[in-house]
């Protein structure tokens, strides 16, 4: 029966060509706009470490003793003392301190002017914890952390730039005035968002596109980085001016992040207790005054920072409002299309077709128009995504259509057209055969 309806639908496409083209174009434009914004939103709001993110946590303690504000939330970063204390307690399965800074980088072998690059100073657990893929070599060892070894891991981009993509393990990199030995080269690694550096979202007024920049190009052990780039660190915030700007060790500033991996719910509970008892103990010692702590898992931390740029969400709403207008438009045009054929439908009804059959036939027609609109919408989405990629946003290189979004395009198009077709089809199925036959 469906094949017959499809044949009828195809035949009716040839009649009223202008009306059909109008409907297909309206659906295509609506779907194109909605799917472009939805694809961007889908890419931006993904889980950067699926399967693992629920076991990764960001620890917060309030090191600021000044009573200037309410302290309802601990700051987004730790002061040096708290960070190092919590890290060296090693109460989690894995733990990584992170702090990033800009540093002048040269490769003595490569004949190039120096570059200013972002350097992440972290601890050896960082790489296994965040499943960072290596092309050559490996991460440094915990001993390197303790010994402040002059070693580094570099990104695949930097390896391409300085060493032409060759295995550069064992080669020397000059960071600031210090020479470090390369021990590892990463594979191309582009988490979206670049989750481990996310912080300060509640102060960003929704402009969070910086969360989607590429990871740092140079990774060094935490203490090594602090030594070789001393004087060039930026605070998250300070409760008093640091005596020596850029040198933040033991300064009145929050600037270090601590990520921990906790592999069971029981460990999460006990780590929370550990954080609270640490805050209590420090309060007793008089170093801090506020004992509010937080331990959010990765997705909670991202949500807390409202990581999806507000513009992207606004655009999605706008596109769907537009799709709604296209939907109303299609309902009206389908109504015109079906009722114009009232005579034909009357004959079918008189020859024994049930109301259900007429309804199904009309819906098939609507669905076919939706499918055609979907093809147009898919092409327009590709065009829309191409336009987004040309925008100078940090995430423009991430924007592409994946399989899920490809199918969503067609499903959305057909569903929209079926919704649009339901009411006109119902109306068409109510046509009284006798009345129509009389006028023939």
């Amino acid at each position, binding site marked *: 029966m469906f094949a017959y309806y499809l044949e009828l639908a195809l035949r009716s496409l040839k009649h009223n060509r202008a009306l059909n083209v109008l409907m297909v174009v309206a659906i295509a434009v609506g779907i194109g*706009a909605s799917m472009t914004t939805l694809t961007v939103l889908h890419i931006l709001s993904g889980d950067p470490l699926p399967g693992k993110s629920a076991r990764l946590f960001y620890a917060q303690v309030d090191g600021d003793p000044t009573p200037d504000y309410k302290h309802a939330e601990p700051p987004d970063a730790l002061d040096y003392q708290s960070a190092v204390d919590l890290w060296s307690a090693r109460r989690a399965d894995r733990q990584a301190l992170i702090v990033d800074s800009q540093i002048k980088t040269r490769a003595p072998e490569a004949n190039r002017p120096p570059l200013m690059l972002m350097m992440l100073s972290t601890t050896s657990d960082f790489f296994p914890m965040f499943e960072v893929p290596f092309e050559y070599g490996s991460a440094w060892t915990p001993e390197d952390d303790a010994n402040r070894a002059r070693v580094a891991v570099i990104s695949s981009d930097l390896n391409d730039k300085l060493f032409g993509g060759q295995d550069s393990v064992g080669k020397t990199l000059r960071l600031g005035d210090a020479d470090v030995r390369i021990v590892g080269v990463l594979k191309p690694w582009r988490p979206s968002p670049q989750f481990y550096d996310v912080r300060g979202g509640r102060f960003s*007024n929704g402009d969070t596109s910086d969360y989607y920049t590429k990871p740092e190009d140079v990774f060094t052990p935490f203490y090594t980085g602090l030594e070789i780039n001393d004087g060039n660190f930026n605070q998250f915030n300070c409760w008093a001016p640091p005596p020596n700007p850029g040198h933040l060790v033991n300064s009145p500033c929050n600037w270090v992040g601590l990520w921990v991996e906790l592999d069971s719910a029981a460990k999460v509970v006990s780590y929370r207790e550990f954080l609270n008892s640490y805050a209590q103990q420090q309060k007793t010692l008089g170093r801090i005054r506020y004992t509010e702590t937080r331990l959010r898992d990765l997705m909670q931390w991202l949500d807390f920072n409202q990581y999806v740029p507000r513009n992207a969400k606004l655009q999605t709403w706008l596109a769907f409002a537009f799709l709604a207008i296209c939907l*109303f438009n299609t309902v009206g045009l389908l109504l*015109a299309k079906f009722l114009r054929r009232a005579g034909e439908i009357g004959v079918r009804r008189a020859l024994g077709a049930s109301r259900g059959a007429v309804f199904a036939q009309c819906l098939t027609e609507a669905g076919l128009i939706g499918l055609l609109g979907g093809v147009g919408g898919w092409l327009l989405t590709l065009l829309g995504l191409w336009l987004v990629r040309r925008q100078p946003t940090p995430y423009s290189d991430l924007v592409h259509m994946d399989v899920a979004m490809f199918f969503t395009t067609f499903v959305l198009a057909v569903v929209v057209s079926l919704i649009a077709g339901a009411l006109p089809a119902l109306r068409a199925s109510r046509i009284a055969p006798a009345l129509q036959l009389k006028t023939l």
Partner: protein
Amino acid sequence: MQIQPILAALRKHRLATVLIAMEIALACAVLCNACSMIASRLSAMHIDSGVDEASLGFIALQGFDPKTANDLNARVVSGLRAISGVQSVHVINSVPFGPQAGATGITLDQAGKQFRGVPEFYVGDPGTPEALGLQLVAGRMPAADDYQPVKNFVPASSRVLITRTLAEHLWPGENALGKEFWTGPFHFRVIGVVANLSVQQYDEEGEQGAQWTVFAPGLPGPQLAGTYLIRANPQDLDRVMTEAKAAIARIAPDAVLDYEWSDTLPALRTKFFRTDRAMTGLLVGVIVALLGVTAFGIVGLASFWVAQRRKQIGIRRALGATRADILRYFQTENFLIVSFGIVLGIVLAIGINLALMKWFEVSRLPLWYLPVGALVLWGLGQLAVLAPALRAAAVPPVVATRSV
């Protein structure tokens, strides 16, 4: 024109009437809100920076040893001054639309109790306010002895210029000259008020803070180094900046030029607002597509109605109605439907605006947008219905005599 028969006819086509009205309502709501968003972004993009943007350029260096800062400043300032067309070179911490260099909370008392918001600080060497082209509205420009060594990010105690907006915010209705404020141990005394000087990183949602700035006179040194203001004739500026960027490699081989921020002020402004421009373009695109879809929807449905009523039109014509009567009939019908949609649309527009204000911190919809949006949609409706209505008017009376 009798409205009664039109209403009676519309009652027969309730569904289609409601559909067009709903489409118009949605279009009206989206149109008004999108226009309001465009307007607020355009007004943000026209912020007055208070400086002679067309004559100014900014050079930022990184990666130099802070111990050599004095030597670097001397080399760069004299090296850049040697470029032909350069009027002056100053050491400055940042410029409007440049990198954020110093945003700090201030208090009106030394104890730090009376917090008054977070202005941004500019620090520059002697002659900087004049080179920027700041417009003094009260007090005086800093004199030679006002420029002091920079400790941390400003001098320990400085005599500063503030903007009119900040003065009015800190001391409403009072004369700001001679007044004091603090940030931590740093002390400031106001010696002059300037018309405008916009912040470095302007955030449209914090619009009241767009002009909250302080200019603190300072002397170059380890804490004020590596960032330079170049002044040149507007017609020379692009060439001067290109030459300056090329000259840096020779003047300061120990430093790395920051390509992102080293540019003319007009270019920095353009870069700063590029996402706003992209969003504005998108909104305009949506409005055009939306009006197009709505218009074609009206054309489609009106054509259908004309075709359906061909016989009735013929009868009316045969009974003495003129072509103008038929034309006016369809125009009035469209006007009624669109009006119905607009009433709904105004309610919807306000509702959507309230939701946007809550979730997206969009500004309030100016009420005069509503009548303007209504006029646009009335016009659109009339334009869309014109072709089908003319076709209806062309139906000859003889149609009435055929196969009733």
